[in-house]
């Protein structure tokens, strides 16, 4: 198996960082070698230096870059992840949103939704919420990975996606499928849409509607500061005034320059786009 020299690692890091913000850290070298080895074999390339050049110069470079990104980026996700934050969302954020929404409609964006567990979780929590009965809810999941998106659209999951799902939730929101797998019930699947979007592509994101809430959890952690700043800026553009940004529990906006206010709710701290005037 080919080994990555420090220089090759750095050059590949630059390639991925430019393409999608992902930082290939040194301690991930061994695993990256393993994940990319089948690509070297398939393309008949002898080492990672040649692979790096392939990613720049070959006519199929773009396609290959997508494959490589798909292989390297962590896509770990599951239903009802970070329950404490979800409780805050249900008990404290939704009532606030319901109060000042225009018409009875809400737009929610799960940015970096991976295989769909997060947007479906939101659909389940919101569809079930007493304050939102009869509301028009549009939940959008976007991701860079086409593989993840096709799994999301399929909406069928194995046991590891349910590691944080209670038996009651399982009974209420899922139908059984073959071999111990489950499928998201139709009513919760219907209002979730999916789209292919690189968060570094500001132009693409500007086509999205103005959002009431953006969930972007466990995505920014893989980016460098500059990329985080860019992406957070984009979120602030896409949120309506008074809209909320929900990050993963170990993530925060300190030292990122975008204007958000930190709101202390009883269950958690959340970010909100301030109102002007």
């Amino acid at each position, binding site marked *: 198996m080919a080994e990555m020299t420090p220089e090759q690692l*750095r*050059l590949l890091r630059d390639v991925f960082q430019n393409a999608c913000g992902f930082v290939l850290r040194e301690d991930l070298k061994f695993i990256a070698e*393993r994940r990319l080895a089948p690509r070297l*074999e398939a393309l008949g390339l002898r080492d990672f230096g040649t692979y790096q050049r392939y990613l720049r110069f070959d006519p199929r470079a773009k396609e290959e870059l997508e494959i490589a990104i798909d292989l390297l980026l962590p896509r770990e996700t599951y239903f009802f992840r970070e329950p404490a934050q979800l409780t805050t969302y249900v008990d404290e954020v939704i009532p606030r949103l319901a109060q000042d929404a225009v018409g009875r409609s809400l737009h929610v964006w799960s940015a970096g939704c991976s295989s769909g567990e997060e947007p479906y979780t939101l659909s389940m929590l919101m569809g079930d919420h007493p304050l939102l009965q009869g509301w028009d809810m549009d939940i959008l999941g976007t991701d860079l990975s086409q593989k993840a998106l096709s799994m999301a659209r399929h909406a069928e999951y*194995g046991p*590891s996606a349910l590691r944080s799902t209670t038996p009651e939730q399982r009974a209420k929101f899922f139908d059984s499928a073959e071999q111990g797998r489950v499928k998201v019930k139709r009513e919760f699947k219907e209002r979730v849409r999916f789209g292919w979007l690189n968060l570094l592509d500001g132009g693409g994101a500007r086509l999205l509607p103005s959002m009431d809430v953006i969930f972007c959890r466990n995505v920014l952690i893989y980016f460098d500061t500059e990329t985080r700043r860019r992406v957070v800026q984009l979120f602030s553009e896409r949120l309506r005034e008074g809209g909320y940004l929900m990050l993963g529990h170990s993530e925060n906006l*300190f030292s990122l320059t975008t*204007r958000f206010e*930190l709101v202390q709710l009883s269950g958690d701290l959340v970010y909100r786009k301030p109102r002007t005037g």
Partner: protein
Amino acid sequence: MTWLDSDPAVETRYRTVSETTDLAALIEALFDESWRVRRLAADKLSVATTSDTLVQALLEVLSRRGQTGARNAAATALAHLGLVGVKPLIGLLGHTDPDQRKFAADILGELGRVEASSALIAALRDDDPNVRVASAEALGKTGGPDARRALEALLAAGPDVLIQVSALEALTALNAPPPLPLLVPLLHNPLTRRSAWRLIGRVRHRSAWVLMVRALRSKSTRDAALLALGGSTTPLASDVENELSVALSGVEDASAWLTKCLASEDLERRVGALHLVRAVRLPELSSRVAEAAEGGALAELSLSVLLSLGTPALVALLEGPSPALLQMSREGRSVASEAIVENSSPRFVGALTALLDAGEDELGEVAVRALGRCESIAAIAPLLRALDDDAVSAAASRALTHLAQTFPAEVKQSLSAKVLGPLRPHLVRAWANVAGLEALPVVRRALHDEAEAVRAAGAQMAMVVASEASTLLGMAVVDESARVRRGAARAVAGLGPTTGRPLLERLLDDREPSVLALAAGAAMECGAAWATPRLIELTTHADSGVVLASVQALMVLGGADDATLARIAAHPDGEVVKQVLQEGASSTAVLAQAVKALNDPRWDVRGAAAEALAVGGGVEHLAALEIASERETDALAHEAISRALAALKAR
């Protein structure tokens, strides 16, 4: 409610600080209310030319109680000053305010200079407990024999547990385990035992192992004792493994306990558990072992432990109604997959076939690769089916070729039926590889196929029928599809520089850059010296890929004069420049460009320039390298420059 940065006023102040070099202004900026502005000022101060005034000014900021932000920023700046900071900070250790003394100890630790050790040792007797703890921790970074002795003395000192823990951590940081009699009593105190066990792991003597083995047997001590194994990922010696294995064999719930430890958030604990699993050989834990790689950092160790568990462990990953492999994280899968592919055996065929049918592309590919290496006739049928599945057909074609090394007749026979039907690119490749000369009719048919992918595969495989290759490739070279011409360009080198010349000439005139680049590569591969004039022309092509391939070919074939090399070495694309620097260091024109390239904005180009000078340069290049070394901010480029300096000085 907190407002996060980025009001325009902050931005203005940030810009002002980034442009100034005035010390007073920078010191003033340490008091800024914005974290970013303070941080920038501290960074700039730490690289400013140091002077007593600067140090005094920073110490003054440090003394402002209530100004937490400014004090931290001043501490950061002081911690980067190097040796000049040591003396004044030692002075600060004598301040009347304990808070100042603690700050001084912390920063001396950050500086990590052994010159500070004796002052810090004295501070271990400070009246204030916080100062004593900070000094002990700092000694773990400054080091030296006196520091060790002083830290060891603290272990014996008695009831102050906090200082004992700091001393243990400091000795761990110095990788300097104290005498065992000092450590043993601390293994029993719940507050000191984690740190103490970590140090036990650093003692290279049987007596330490004996202690650990004993502790692993007992429920109440084993969690802490495991940390003694968690400090290093290097495999344990086999006699140690044997003892550990004996120790754990009497423990009833060892398997459940290790399962828990392998999934721990604490990486040291996971490492310890991996070592133990290898020692005890519990193949049923194989999926947990693979999953210990989750996150990526422990993948290497996890793979080696998994391999040590042998075939039964791999079977456990693959078999059952819902195989463990399907439930794993991506890192766990990678580790498990590599182990399975590397150690594939006839026993796996059934499970691998089921895995292939589970419909997950990534695991399907693993199954195909493993089937190719399992050395079983039974693998042929599933691999033939896999040839029809776009997601895995490329891998299946390679796997069949591999399997044909063991079962040539059987693989050929199964494929011969299939090539009578519609052709697909990877079927053509597999057939050509397996059938050799007999593949001619199929290759010919492929070159007339309606699908360009099939024609391209036909072109690429034309060389297996060497006698006909010229004619076959002749058709491909005039194909309207660039993909097919690329297939021809990949194969044409096999004809050699003379027979291949007419075809190669045409390909070197193609209008598609991707074809040109491959043709240049072919010229290099077959040693077509006649092509140099055309290759020199191609170095001015607008497409960097074409230029790069042409330069590669020229460097191997020779024939480019100094003027040409100098021109290429100034190309706007960094990859092109690196190519010339990496292969042209024997040319003085290239070396002259290398000196200029030491100023290139790209770190990799600067590194390549230094490497070229290291082998081709002389003393006349020392000055340029010295300047580059001082200015270099990139670690890898800096290493290359230092190596070049050392090489030239030695000359």
